[in-house]
């Protein structure tokens, strides 16, 4: 009986301790200060104030939205902007930005670096908006030294010879 009592006593103290800790965290949040260890996620720079879903929802499930949109776009040609990775970048990374993915100042890396979650989106996708340039032809012209690739061509008919120009 004595043992049980002392256990209850201990757990009560522990609970009180947790409550105090939790309260102090809330108090901290209420004061509007960010703990020094939290990631410094930059806000959209294009005047947008609201994301396509609630902030909490996006924090938790943004990958699901992007993944769904990815398949819809590639396989079905559905090109709505709302949940597209392109639109994430257009809002969250300033145009003409020099910041690249991997840099702590990049919207995606700011949190992914912090959480230690590596993603490979930007091995293929661009990590900054192309802006108006995107509507015209690609501004990234081939380098000056470009030579047209030439591959050997095998003639498939005895009377016709094929070769690359």
């Amino acid at each position: 009986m004595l043992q049980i009592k002392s256990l209850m006593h201990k757990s009560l103290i522990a609970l009180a301790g947790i409550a105090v800790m939790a309260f102090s965290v809330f108090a901290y949040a209420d004061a509007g200060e960010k703990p020094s260890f939290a990631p410094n996620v930059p806000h959209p720079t294009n005047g947008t104030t609201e994301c396509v879903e609630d902030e909490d929802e996006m924090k938790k499930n943004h990958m699901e939205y992007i993944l769904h949109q990815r398949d819809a776009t590639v396989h079905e040609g559905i090109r709505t902007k709302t949940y597209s990775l392109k639109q994430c970048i257009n809002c969250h990374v300033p145009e003409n930005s020099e910041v690249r993915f991997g840099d702590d100042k990049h919207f995606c890396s700011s949190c992914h670096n912090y959480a230690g979650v590596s993603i490979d989106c930007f091995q293929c996708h661009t990590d900054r908006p192309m802006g108006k340039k995107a509507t015209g032809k690609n501004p990234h012209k081939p380098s000056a030294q470009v030579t047209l690739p030439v591959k050997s061509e095998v003639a498939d008919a005895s009377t016709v010879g094929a070769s690359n120009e």
Partner: protein
Amino acid sequence: MNKALKQINIVDESRRSFVGKTATAAAALTIAPGVFLNQVHAKPADEAVTDAKRWGMLIDTAKCASGCTSCVTACHEENGIESHNRPLTDQQWIRKVKLKDKLTNHVVSLPMMCQHCEKPPCVDVCPTGASFKREDGIVLVDRHICIGCRYCMMACPYKARSFAHEVVDNKVEHQPRGKGTVESCTMCVHRVDEGGTPACVEACAEAEHGAMLFGDLKDPSSEISKQLVEHGGKQIRADLGLNTGVRYRGI
């Protein structure tokens, strides 16, 4: 999350943009009534492609100028393809080929790219399902799924596919490309979905050759269908029975 509400918003947005695009397309008709510009086929952005259309190309080798590489340059610019000065392994989505009849010495020049087969061998052999054909007949690689095994490159009778051996530095937002995957002509799917024409076709028209015609093979009133009815169009390696979406005249 208020999913239902969001859904309504999406529909509204895309309808709005559809109306806008239709208006733009109509304007394009009146401003420049060229063969390549008077195609109105923009679909609402939230609608999936269907098999009601099949995109194809007709290439007139008589108009294709020997030595002209406008289509190749335009393709590279549009899709951010850069040479690494290694001709044997550099990516090429489109290339110019010269065909010479050894008996008559008659030479024809033509652009060669993915032929967007109805029965694509690349899709048959792909072990992951990355190589696929869209409902509207465009053959693509889903590079999210591609493991870079290059079976499709070996299966393709047209040597249309390339492997990305190098990291892509200058990425373009409409055509994500990356090291370790296979890629090929997409018939500029990002343009087609928004009612546009492939970059090579546009460049060929700009170069005043007009050797390339893009359109819907299933629509009997489309320019490409009319031309096919009138003049016919050959498949390269027709013996394989692949029913290619790219047809040639004068070979």
